[in-house]
């Protein structure tokens, strides 16, 4: 198959690559760009491990052709921390045990990031609803819920501090 030259906008950077038009975004991220934080856990969009944000919306990169996403801002787990400062969700997943084997974690964090961007104070039900497309086989989800709750608290504290500074 002929290669096409495409440009992808990922984590605030531009990447110019040549690839076949039938390549999945998941494979281009992992194999061509070395962004291996996006995981493949299944082959049929069952598990959500390959979740990335497309203009802020969580989508499964195992269902997406890379060539079709040239005009979108793509965020992978590698783009979530602010330099050496972890995102509150990343901190939450560390301190509340949300990541055991860690394989579902990137997808969980990106999905939760979208939730908290829309709804900074979600109920447990809203969190569970939002994460229901991301499977985990380790935790039973209890500590994942606690991790997101912790991130909500950290965000609130950060906002309070910011307000006091003003």
């Amino acid at each position, binding site marked *: 198959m002929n290669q096409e030259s495409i440009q992808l906008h990922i984590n605030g950077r531009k990447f110019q690559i040549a690839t076949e038009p039938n390549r999945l975004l998941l494979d281009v991220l992992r194999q061509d760009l070395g962004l291996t934080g996006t995981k493949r856990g299944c082959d049929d969009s069952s598990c959500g491990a390959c979740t990335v944000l497309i203009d802020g919306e969580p989508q499964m990169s195992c269902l997406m052709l890379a060539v079709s996403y040239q005009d979108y801002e793509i965020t992978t*787990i590698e783009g979530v921390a602010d330099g050496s400062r*972890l995102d509150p969700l*990343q*901190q939450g997943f*560390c301190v509340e045990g949300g990541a055991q*084997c860690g*394989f579902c974690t990137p997808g969980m964090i990106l999905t939760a990031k979208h939730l908290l961007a829309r709804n900074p104070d979600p109920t447990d039900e809203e969190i569970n609803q939002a994460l229901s497309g991301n499977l*985990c086989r*380790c935790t039973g989800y*209890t500590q994942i819920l606690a991790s997101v709750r912790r991130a909500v608290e950290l965000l609130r504290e950060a906002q309070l501090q910011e307000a006091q500074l003003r």
Partner: protein
Amino acid sequence: MSLNPAFVPNSGNGANRSPLGARVPMVDSVDKVTGAGKYTDDLALPGTLAGKILHSPHAHARILSVDTSAAERLPGVHAVVTGRETPVKYGILPVGHDETIFATGKVRYIGDNVAGVAAESESVAEEALRLIKVDYEVLPAYFDPEQSMRAETNLIHDEKPRNIEKEYHHHFGNVEAGFAEADYIRDDRFECAEVTHAALEPHSTLAQFDPSDPSDPSDPEGSVTVWSSTQVPYYLMRTLAATLELPEEKVRVIKPLVGGGFGGKSEVIPLELAAAVLARQARAPVKITYTREEVFYAHRGRPRQIVELKTGVKRDGKITAVEARIIQDGGAYCSYGVVTILYSGQLLNAMYDIPNVKFDGYRVLTNKPACGAMRGHGTVNSRFAFETQLNMIAEVLGIDPAAIRRRNLLQPPCMTVNGLRVLSYGYPECLEKVVEQSGWKRKYGKLPYGKGIGLAGSHYVSGAANAIVRSEIPHTTVDLSIDRSGTVTIYTGAAEIGQGSDTMQVQVVAAELGIGLNRVKIVAADTARTPIDLGSYSSRVTFMAGNAALAAAREAKKRILAAVAHKLATTPENLAMEGEHIVCRDPAWRNLSLTFAEAAEEAVLAVGSDGTLRATGSYSPPASAQGGKYKGAGVGPSPAYSYSAQTAEVTVDPETGEVKVDRIIAAHDCGKAINPLNVEGQVQGSVWMGLGQAVQEEMMWQGGRLMNPGLLEYRSASTLESPPIETIIVESNDPEGPFGAKEAGEGSLAATIPAVVQAIHDAVGVWITSLPVTPEKVLRALEEKRRREELSH
């Protein structure tokens, strides 16, 4: 590897706080939340080829011929390997060497491995697989164990008559006398469907051959490095050496991050050997990563099990005898099967005081993927049957389910009737805790129709007291090195698979040396660099690697304190290590201000060598924990057992048969929680996996074809089907565990299932004896109950 505390709040890294019993994040958690951590499929070497495996389309067939010529001619193909080139047999158990890398002569299940290809891309490799021509003579196949046990012809393995892999017949005490003494005897048949691990990371292996060194006559074959998603790097190294016919020192296995195991990566999986064989032939690195469907067929999960169970009790609930006939549908190869069938009998009675026990166990071969070890190995289905029957008996006799368990407790320290040594026993406390927290007395038998509560217990080994391959070497060894800056590095063969192995060892060493976690680094699971550990299975790591790490830290501490004592002209007994400092009881040194780093430097200088102080610790289980002398006595013994008691609350819809689990409370005796955060995570994960087996998960077979080889079809629960799981940690402080610790990662799974089944009975009055408890089974049982009640009116 170690956490930067600036990233993580409340990480408990403060130097003045003991890391023992602290809720510290896993040492690799930052790598996991940033995506920086590398799993096997994330690795790539220059020129890596894609490996693919041709699987059998037949459940049982003779291979008449394999023609690979067209595949070999396809541009981009670098290697094609079949069973002709891979004749060496292997298997995880010394008594079960019945597999070859690629099939020789016969295929025994749909999915069996026939040939492998390495090519420049996955699509070329797949095209090459299509070009391989295999002529099969299809043979009659066996799918049901009870039918398979009657086979006389077309045996799955010629040397296994009646397709029985192994049978055991144990009799302890005198069951005839026990049943004669009983006031009430029950006989029930239980059936448990086959379930699988479905770890989220599909198995993956990357193999690279280094060509032989022409100047070194001892190196004619070259050497191989294998990165793999394994729970058992050491056994993988040995099996690679055996099947590739290389000396062990020419094989290096490195375990990157592993995305969950649950037992599915606790033996050598065919792709691990196939990648290495292909890499050798292709003279290039080869990576194979299974598709999710291949993961399901690779399996090695929990077998379908039939339990015919008979229990006799006195009127007060005291058990007088137990007799079990257990059949396991093991699939086409031995795998861990001999151990699985033994566990199903050996641990059946061992959490209670039962004087008379009889066990007949049959591990049966069928033409399906091999079953193996899965979380709670061998014990789960037997525990479901036993605890359910105990609850049935309690109901008939009008005894509270908690009371009937109290009536049958062990009195440790003791030996069970089948020779298992029990020292610490937190089970009574687990029972009391869940009864109290659940409001059991208020609820049991008193909730409105459709709502119910159930109670059950379980236990599990903290590592097997006898190694798979019997030898004199310790079960695990941990090395420490301390440099003059006071940095401590742990070298361990123990395999972190997401359960917290690395973090546990870092905490143990830091606690013993009285230092902060940031001072401790860990290098793990690289057979060329780290000492031997047998692997992450049978919940052995905390007890065994934890004890070895503790022994190594004690040795290092002794040397450091000796050097400091010499310098201060005092005795080591006057010295202690805490809060990153050396503390001295000698009045002359009351105001001593000596940091750990300074003391380490002193000790390093005293050693006078290469600037590093080294210490080693190892662990082997004591002879008193190794069990009896009868055939099969080696499986079941452990230096310590964990215990769990649980309550489950459910809502059953009598119109649809749907069961909703509302709440689980799990009390787990882990001896001592080195890291309560991780203990809770392990217990919750176990309970959740038990819930999956109780009400959702099932490998659905049509003949030898799996009908649901996907995570959605297999019904792995999402957040929406997963209830809150409350955990209670019980600390019985095992006298031989590291700081008193025992296992936490498996033992809670088994109690969940019978607790849910009893809750369903409490809700709607029917006993479901077949897993999983589907709405259809509930409706059928309710219908039968209605019919019985109509007849009796």
